[in-house]
């Protein structure tokens, strides 16, 4: 019998959300791979693309 005020559907949705967030937490605890941390350090060497210049016809 679900608690008062909560449908079984709400309870299942909450359970799934908790499992997914635990899953996310487990992933977040992992060390970042080396190539991603290196990329972050080297972002400054990547030149941002300039927005397209509009020309008058």
């Amino acid at each position, binding site marked *: 019998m679900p608690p008062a005020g909560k449908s079984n559907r709400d309870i299942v949705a909450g359970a799934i959300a908790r499992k997914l967030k635990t899953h996310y937490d487990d992933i977040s605890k992992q060390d970042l791979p080396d190539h*991603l941390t290196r990329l972050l350090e080297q972002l400054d060497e990547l030149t941002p693309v300039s927005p397209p210049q509009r020309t008058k016809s």
Partner: protein
Amino acid sequence: MADVMEFNFKQELLVSLRPMRAFAISLCGKADQADDLVQETLIKAWTNQHSFQPGTNLRAWLFTILRNEFYTYLRKRRREVEDADGVIAGNVAVLPEQDGHMNLQDMNTALAQLPPNQREALLLVSASDMSYEEAAQVCGVAVGTIKSRVNRARARLAEVLGIADSSDLGPTSETRAVLGPAA
């Protein structure tokens, strides 16, 4: 001013990195492929930062790039058949619970039972804490479509995980913390 803005954008990318990686791994099921997606997303975000309007939703902007990269990857692979109705994914597997806690690959395997469009909707709303409106923006569909996909994904995932009703939920992490290993 340009230096300050550049610094802030980079800081925001740093803050978003782990959430993006969690989404990517959960979306494609494999860490190495997910890391490639995140790498491509970071590069595209950095080199196209002019197209992001400060003050708008950076997380949604980044996740949009990432999920688009995911679908580009799927099209290139040409291995995964579009299964919008979940017909092929209907061969569900009920995974055994191990002390109420699933390992990382178990959850990835469970999520892989969902069609990609349902999987991403569920992850964005239930795991990434996006609103339905934000998730709809990321996926480029109507809010009603996201709600439908999330509901179907929840029902499918509950079936895969063997969660039929509240009696199958087992102890929460808080309960386990109080009761110890016996829970």
